[in-house]
């Protein structure tokens, strides 16, 4: 088996194992109020981190580029209660327009 095949298949097995492990942990572990409460606030940290990585990370570097304009426009749209799809499309268009204008 070539190196590429080993890498692809082994990484796939491990990835699935990691995903499945979260479903095999007994649910009662999560029914303790402390843990379930902590798990309800956890998404805010994860989602905020995803926003930051998607906006500012380029590999291991922090960069300020057209994605920031997209994010600002998305934030304005959200503050005006725009629907989800409108927020996403406006964010993409703003970044694309910024790049077309020659920045970021």
């Amino acid at each position: 088996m070539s190196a590429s095949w080993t890498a692809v298949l082994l990484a796939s097995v491990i990835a699935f194992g990691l995903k499945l492990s979260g479903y095999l942990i007994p649910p009662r572990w999560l029914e303790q109020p402390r843990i379930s409460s902590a798990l309800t606030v956890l998404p805010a940290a994860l989602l905020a981190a995803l926003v930051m990585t998607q906006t500012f990370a380029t590999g291991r570097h922090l960069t300020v580029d057209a994605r920031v304009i997209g994010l600002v426009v998305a934030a304005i749209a959200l503050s005006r209660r725009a629907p989800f799809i409108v927020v996403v499309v406006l964010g993409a268009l703003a970044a694309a327009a910024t790049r077309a204008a020659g920045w970021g």
Partner: protein
Amino acid sequence: MVTLEPAGVRRQALSVGLATALYGISLGAVAVASGLSVLQACLTSLLLFSGGSQFALVGVLGSGGSVWAAVAASSLLGIRNGLYALQINAAIRPQGWRRPAAAQLTIDESTAVSVAQSDDAGRRLGFWLTGLTVYVGWNLMTLLGALIGRSIGDPRTYGLDAAAAAAFLALVWPRLRHRSGLQIAALGAVVDLSLVPVLPAGLPIVAAGAVGLVAGLRQVSR
């Protein structure tokens, strides 16, 4: 928190799904450029199915890294899916054949849409719909990207990277109205940004999640 009608959940799922799926083109192109065959590129999306892990795998292989380095980078990034699975399991409790199916679909996007909903019905619909939409789109686009290689140019030209950021912002937005949500989100953002230059891609998100969990436990015990 805003309670969304099923139609609202569907729109979210489709928007996130489409924005992400379009990125699959670049993954397919990068995978082939890194020396994988079209079949191998497609198998990473069918079997591994976790964008960050896939990019890490082909990135390390493409830059001449060993099989083990590539698998380790990919697997480290996959740890967060186990964390997501804990949350999804608590909300939707899949049984029988649905359990491995749910496991395979447990990724950033399906979790993000699911946890952003305010009741279990919404979380269930958001998870499955987003997971399936991303799975189908991601695989089709990986094949397309692998076939046409780099000739499509850069998906960034179309602002698709910013579309993903906008989608995640829209998902966290309702949580920012409450003081505790705002604090935890700010903490996650700061942890992520400070660790991006230090840790391999994807791990800062794991760290932010872990810090958010610890902060959540402290909030409760106070």
